[in-house]
C-alpha cells in the first residue's frame, strides 16, 4: 500500500493498543491489548487546556514529517509485518503489495476530481436553478452554492455511479437519476452545515462568513429547511421508493449524530465507540447511502449495493477522522473554518480520545483513518476495473493526505 501519508504513523510497538481500539470499533479482529494511561489532555473547553493540546499537536506534526521522510526513502513495505505484533486480517502482505505496485503509476489512477469534472461542472448552477425563488431566500441559497465548495460528495457519487454502471452493464454513461443524486447529496450536506453553524455559533465556513452571522439565525435555519425540502422533492421525483427510504435514513442519522454530540459517556471504551458511531452518523452515513442509492438506480444487485455502501461508509469515516486531526493541528487560514473549534466546544474527537489514553492522539487517529481507507479499497476492488474505480481508490489517498 503506497504510504505518502504526511500525517500518518509509524508502526510502533504501540500497535497493541491500536488493535485494542480497533476491536472496540468492531471492525477488526485484533487482540484486545492493555491500554496505558499517561496523563492525557482534558476534554474540557477552557483555553488553557486548548492551547496546551494544540502545542503538543504541533510537535507531533513535526515528528510525523520525519516519519514521512523515512517512509518515502525506504522500502518500508517489507518491514511492515515485523513491526506489527498483532497482524489484523487486513494487513495481509500479498494484497497490500499488489495495491502498492499498482499505485506507483499515476497514469493508471486518474485524479478523481478531473475524472468527475465533466459531470459536475454545472452542478452548482443546476442546484441554484432548483432553488430559484425570490427575495432573501435566493441570496442565501446562492451564497453556499457559489461553486467554490469541494463537491467531495457529488464527486464520489458520480464516480461510484459510473463504476457500478460499468460493473453491471458495461456502460460508463451516467444516468440522469444518478446525476440528480449528486445534486441531492450536496444539497442535504449544505443544509446540515447551515444548521450546524447555528448550533455551534460558528462565524466562518469555507473561508466566508457564515449565513447565520449575515442574515441571522432564524433565516439561516429556515433556509436550511428550504434546501432540505427541495432536495426531498428532487428525491421523490426519482420515483424510487428504496432510494427515498435510504436517503431519509441518512437524514435521520445526521440529526441523531448531532444529538449524540450532546451526550457523553463515562467509560473510556464506550466513549470511543460512541465517537465512532457519531462519526458514522454525522458524516459517513450520507456518503454511504448515496453510494448505495446510485447503485440501486443503476439496477445493480444487492452485492454491488453492499460494496458501494461499504466503500462510502469507510471512506466517510476516514474523511471525518482526518478532519478531526486537521481541526486539531492545522491553522484556521488553511482550513477556512474555525479550528480547535471542536476542542473549544468540548467535543471529544479522535485525537483527543486517543490522547487520553496515549500521548500521540494524532498519530493513532491517522492510523485508524488509514485502516478505514484500506477497507474501502478492499471493497471497491471487488468491482470490475475501470478508470472510475481506480479514481475512487486514489481518492482514499487524497483523503489521508489532504491538509484542507
Amino acid at each position: 500500500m503506497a504510504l505518502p501519508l504526511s500525517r500518518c504513523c509509524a508502526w510502533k510497538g504501540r500497535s497493541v493498543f491500536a488493535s485494542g481500539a480497533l476491536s472496540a470499533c468492531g471492525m477488526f479482529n485484533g487482540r484486545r491489548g492493555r491500554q496505558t494511561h499517561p496523563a492525557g489532555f482534558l476534554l474540557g473547553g477552557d483555553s488553557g487546556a486548548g492551547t496546551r493540546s494544540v502545542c503538543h499537536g504541533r510537535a507531533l506534526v513535526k515528528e510525523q514529517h520525519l516519519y514521512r521522510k523515512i517512509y518515502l526513502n525506504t522500502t518500508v513495505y517489507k518491514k511492515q509485518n515485523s513491526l506489527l505484533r498483532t497482524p489484523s486480517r487486513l494487513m495481509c502482505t500479498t494484497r497490500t503489495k499488489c495495491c502498492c505496485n499498482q499505485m506507483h503509476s499515476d497514469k493508471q489512477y486518474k485524479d478523481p476530481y478531473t475524472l468527475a469534472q465533466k459531470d459536475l461542472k454545472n452542478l452548482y448552477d443546476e442546484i441554484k436553478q432548483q432553488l430559484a425563488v425570490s427575495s432573501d431566500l435566493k441570496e442565501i441559497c446562492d451564497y453556499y452554492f457559489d461553486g467554490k465548495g469541494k463537491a467531495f460528495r457529488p464527486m464520489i457519487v458520480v464516480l461510484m455511479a459510473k463504476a457500478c454502471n460499468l460493473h453491471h452493464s458495461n456502460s460508463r454513461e451516467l444516468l440522469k437519476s444518478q446525476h440528480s443524486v449528486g445534486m441531492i447529496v450536496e444539497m442535504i450536506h449544505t443544509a446540515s452545515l447551515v444548521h450546524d453553524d447555528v448550533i455551534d455559533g460558528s462565524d466562518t465556513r469555507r473561508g466566508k462568513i457564515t449565513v447565520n452571522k449575515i442574515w441571522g439565525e432564524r433565516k439561516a435555519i429556515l433556509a436550511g429547511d428550504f434546501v432540505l425540502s427541495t432536495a426531498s422533492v428532487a428525491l421523490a421525483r426519482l420515483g424510487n421508493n428504496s432510494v427515498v427510504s435510504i436517503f431519509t435514513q441518512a437524514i435521520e442519522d445526521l440529526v441523531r449524530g448531532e444529538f449524540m454530540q450532546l451526550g457523553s459517556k463515562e467509560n473510556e471504551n464506550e466513549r470511543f465507540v460512541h465517537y465512532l458511531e457519531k462519526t458514522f452518523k454525522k458524516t459517513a452515513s450520507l456518503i454511504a447511502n448515496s453510494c448505495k442509492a446510485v447503485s440501486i438506480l443503476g439496477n445493480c444487485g444487492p452485492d454491488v449495493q453492499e460494496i458501494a455502501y461499504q466503500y462510502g461508509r469507510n471512506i466517510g469515516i476516514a474523511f471525518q477522522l482526518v478532519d478531526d486531526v486537521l481541526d486539531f493541528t492545522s491553522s484556521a487560514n488553511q482550513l477556512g473554518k474555525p479550528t480547535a473549534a471542536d476542542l473549544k466546544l468540548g467535543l471529544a474527537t479522535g485525537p483527543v480520545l486517543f490522547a487520553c489514553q496515549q500521548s500521540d492522539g494524532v498519530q493513532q487517529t491517522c492510523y485508524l483513518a488509514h485502516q478505514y481507507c484500506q477497507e474501502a479499497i478492499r471493497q471497491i476492488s471487488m468491482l470490475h476495473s475501470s478508470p472510475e474505480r481506480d479514481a475512487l481508490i486514489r481518492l482514499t489517498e487524497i483523503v489521508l493526505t489532504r491538509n484542507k
Partner: protein
Amino acid sequence: MSLTLRRMKYGTALAGAFCRSQILHSSSSPSSWAKVVSEAEKIVGYPTSFMSLRCLLSDELSNIALQVRKLVGTKHPLISTARGFVYDSKNNLQLRGLVVLLMSKAAGPSKTADPPLEGDLVSGIYSSQRNLAEITELIHTAFLVHRGIVNIMELTSSHGSLKDMQFGNKMAVLSGDFLLANASIGLAQLQNTKVVELVSSAIGDLVQGVYYENSRTDEEKVTDDILMINWEEQTFLSHGALLAKSCQGAMQLAKHDCEVQEMAFQYGKHMSLAHKAKVNGNQADYAKLHRIIKAGKGVSSSLDLCHYHGNQALEALRCFPTSEARSTLENIVYAVTKF
C-alpha cells in the same frame, strides 16, 4: 431511574399537558368550537392530540424537554411554543391532523382505483392516511419550533442572558430537525413518491411564506390587484399549503382521481385562508386591504374575505358524498368563519 420509568414519567406529564380537554380557549365561540372538535374526534376514532405523542416520548425529545426547563424565565420563543401546545392560541389552527382524517373519511374508499387499494379501514380511514395526518402535525410543529429561533444580534438584555438564548436556539434547531427527520421517515414509509413530493414541497412553501412576510414590498408602488394577490399567495404559502397538500395527499393515498384530489386541496386552502382572514382582520396592515375589498371585487369587507373563502371551502365539499365526516368538515368552516 430506568429508561422505561423515565419514559413513563415524562410521558404522563406530556400527555397531561397535551390533553385536549385543557386546550380550547378559542376566544370567539368556545362552546361550538369545542363541540365541533370533540365530534370530529369521535368520528375519526381517537383524540388527535395524542398523535405526535409517540415522537414526543422519544429519548431525544425527552432530553430536550428536560433541558428546555432551564429556559423558563427567559424570553426565548421556545418556551412559548411549548406552552402553545397546552393552551391553544387563537392564532394557531391546531387541527391539521384532524382535518386530514375527516377528509379521508369523507372521501371514503376510491371507486375509480384500479386495482383497488388493499388495506384495512379503521373508522373508515386507511392506516397510511392516519400516518399522513400525523406527519402533517409533525411538520407543522417542527416549523413552529424553527420559527421561534432568535437572532442573536437583535437581542437585548431583557431577553435573558446570551448564553441562555444561544442554548435555546440550539434546542430549537435540534428538536425541529428531529421532528422533520421523523416526518421524512414517515413519508418514506408511505411508499408513495408522489405524496412524498407533495408534502415535501409544502415545507418549502412554509419557508417561502415566512420570507414573504418579512419582506413586504413597498405598498405605494403596488397596485390593488397585486396587493390582494400577494396576500392570498403569501398567506397560502405560510398557512394554507401544508393543509391543502396534505388533504390532497390523503386522497392520493386512497387512489382517488384528480377531481377528488383537487377538491380536497381546495378545501384545505380556502379553510386556512378563511381562518387567517378572520384572525388578521383587526391588524393595521389590512387597512389598505379593506379599501381594496370595499372597492368591490366581489367581496365587500374584510369579514366577507373570510366568508368568501369559507364559501369556497364549502363549495369544494360538494363533490363528497353526504356523511357525518363531511358535515363535520362543514361545521369546522362555520366555526372558523363565525363572528
